[in-house]
């Protein structure tokens, strides 16, 4: 048993390091759907946690209770059809119920989006998020790959298009108004990326050739990070965007100010 003590000594500094890791858990939930997903997460955690504890305790109990002892012979049985049926049916019922429970949330989050107050198009590229606001006319200007200029026009917006006149294109800066429904159109220029805001409890891949849609309704103001969750190359780890959730007035001010700066 000496080696067990040695192993404990080895992990003593490790457990000290883990001290600041103790608060590591689900981040803040800042949309209407995030708490719904969290509740489902806790339902799954409760079910799997109970099974986990039950199975491990049974295993340990059997290992102690039925360890080899002199003169004691093992029982002789090939099984029992009744218990097979029971332990097939019970997991099946729980899992089907969990599917139904999950489907309710799934259709809420990924079903038909509610009518949006604001639409935003996000075009991901190696290694940045191009955020495209349609402006006051609520219509996105035309984009064309041949117009792309990485320095001045990363999404190839056709500035001659009348609907593009009031469009705002920002890089890595996503501002969203509080308590409004936002529909996000997600695209990619080069390889697959994935739009991931942990506080939204959502991620959606941005796939070249496909426009994916997701919707959110932010409920808490603050500054958050956008991470890329799909390996996209060398700079994948630093493809970090900045999300600001603010009151609709502040949002309008930011939009107006950014448009004025863009015109310069």
């Amino acid at each position: 048993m000496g080696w067990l003590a040695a192993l404990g000594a080895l992990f003593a500094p490790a457990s000290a390091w883990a001290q600041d890791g103790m608060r590591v858990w689900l981040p803040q939930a800042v949309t209407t759907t995030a708490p719904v997903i969290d509740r489902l997460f806790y339902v799954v955690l409760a079910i799997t946690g109970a099974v986990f504890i039950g199975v491990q305790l049974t295993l340990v109990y059997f290992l102690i209770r039925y360890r080899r002892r002199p003169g004691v012979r093992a029982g002789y049985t090939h099984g029992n059809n009744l218990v097979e049926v029971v332990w097939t049916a019970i997991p099946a019922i729980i899992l089907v119920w969990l599917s139904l429970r999950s489907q309710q949330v799934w259709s809420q989050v990924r079903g038909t989006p509610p009518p949006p107050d604001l639409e935003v198009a996000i075009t991901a590229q190696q290694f940045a998020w191009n955020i495209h606001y349609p402006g006051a006319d609520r219509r996105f200007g035309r984009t064309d790959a041949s117009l792309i200029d990485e320095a001045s026009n990363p999404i190839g917006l056709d500035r001659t298009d009348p609907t593009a006149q009031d469009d705002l294109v920002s890089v890595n800066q996503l501002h969203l108004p509080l308590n409004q429904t936002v529909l996000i159109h997600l695209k990619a220029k080069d390889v697959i990326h994935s739009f991931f805001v942990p506080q939204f409890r959502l991620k959606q891949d941005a796939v070249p050739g496909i426009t994916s849609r997701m919707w959110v309704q932010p409920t808490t103001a603050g500054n958050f990070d956008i991470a890329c969750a799909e390996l996209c190359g060398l700079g994948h780890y630093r493809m970090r965007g900045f999300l600001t959730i603010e009151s609709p007035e502040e949002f309008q001010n930011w939009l107006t100010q950014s448009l004025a700066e863009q015109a310069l």
Partner: protein
Amino acid sequence: MSGASHTTHDAADGMRKVVNSQLIFLGLLFVPLLSLLLPAQAAWIRWGSLAVLAAAVVVMRRTLFSSDHKVIGVQFLITSLVMLFVGGLLAALIRLQLGWPNQAWPWLGKILPGGFPEGGPMDPTFYNMLFTMHGSIMIFFAIIPLLVGVFGNYLIPLKIGAGDMAFPKLNMYSYWLVPPAIAVVCAGFFMESGAAAGGWTAYAPLSTTLGPGQVCWIVGVIILGSSSIMGAANYLTTIINLRAPGMSFFRLPLAIWALFITAIMVLLATPVLASALILLLLDSTAGTSFFLPAGLVIDGVVQARAGGQVLLWQHLFWFYSHPAVYIMILPAMGIVSEILPVFARKPLFGYHSMVYAIMGIALLGFLVWAHHMFTSGMNPTLGTSFMVSTMVIAVPSAIKTFNWLGTLWRGSIQLTTPMLHAIAFVSMFVIGGLTGIFAASTPVDLYLHDTYFIVGHLHYVLFGGSLFGIFAGVTFWYPKMFGRMLNERLGKIHCALTFICFNAVMFPMFILGIAGMPRRIYDYTAYTHLAQVGGLNRMMSVAAFVLVAAQVLFIINFFRSLAHGKVAGQNPWQANTLEWATASPPPHGNFTTTPTVYHGPYEYSVPGRKEDWLAQNVKA
């Protein structure tokens, strides 16, 4: 009698020679690759080292080239254990970066100048290569060859009472495709552009934009796939046609059932991967557009491609790779179902439902692939159907777990090294299975997908499950393979250290995933929601280093026992199945007379018998 023991001694000697020549061959295989690092003027060294390799192969041809299934099994064993260790070293480098991001390692810069340029911190591209090659090596060159190659080859003829495989030559080719596959996949490490860096999933379009290392990866995996297909055809034919008299299907040991169903899955799934890889190869090198849509702009340049579908790669890839997960777990389940009855001295609980559960897993395993794609942009309605099939596949896995517990119930449990590994398998596989339910629930997966939660989940299945199953199998059949026992004490220390350190590395991954840490991230320190995870990551890294170091115990035990282990005898575990009814190691041809089978494989502690076992070939 003395004549028989003489033959056994020769067979043991022969196996040691096989191991030694295989190690020399694998060592020499990497010399030409290393010479790629030398400047172009030194091309003669490259050709010279290739000539040395060729000469060594000619000299050792008698021990290298054998169509005996036992020799091929041992060759698979040595090759894939070496690759397992290489994969482990790559994992240690990954953990080095995650434990101490941005830290400079000047001494590592001397050994790996490409990975740590100018003695500074690790290069981000090198990090991408590390996890890509770690995943690829572990899956394609360690776990699949260990489970299917080693146990398929070694056990099938012995356990069904056959003299050899149905197609011994095909079997030999299936092994001899593996070293070239390894050399080609690993060649990238020795090239200027580096190894593959697109993840083991090689998602297009990224994988088509990377350099020659990625092309090597594609070609190598195609070669390996051909090897798997040859092996699978052979296993199926052998099991169907060469069973000993009396060995009906429902008297087959569970390991053979598992390998049989696995071979069917390999045969149905691997050709899909091979064809998808050929399409990817054409997209990468020949300018086709199978996976590349119109309007791609890479580095500001509009690509002249059109008509491809990005998601098509994922569908084809996962149509192979999800069944591949079951290819990597079913044989381990079979091995564990073999070992638990032997050391509980009790029949396997629910033999028939265990067999039907394997069939159920295999069938459903083909219907769940798109659960890897809930966030991929495919139609959410499709997500629902794949969620349901994924939830349902948990049922046969639960059945298997409960039957293993039922086998232990009222047993007479003997905690040998193989038994400890088998129990670790049951315990860890439960965690792997249960955490899969989080990922199966589509809304929860929206959050957890591509985070460390998934990394934890897959390691509980593939390390906690497959690898503990492999350790259980290797320690259990080692006496049969080499005629000598492993050291029990060393074996138990190795098992305990592996179990503790494995959990210390992998369990915190769930916590990191719940905290929102994405996988495949070279440096997480910039993200505000990950400000607290540094300490936990460092603890995991230390545990990972101890985990890798602990494997040295296994290596020492393995090679020391080859010559110095206690002589095993024919049936050291007092087990029932046919491989124990012949010498250790078995002679060429396996059995002196073809055995006749009278019972199922798990007749332990039959009432009214003096012994607590009843061999399959012995009349009651």
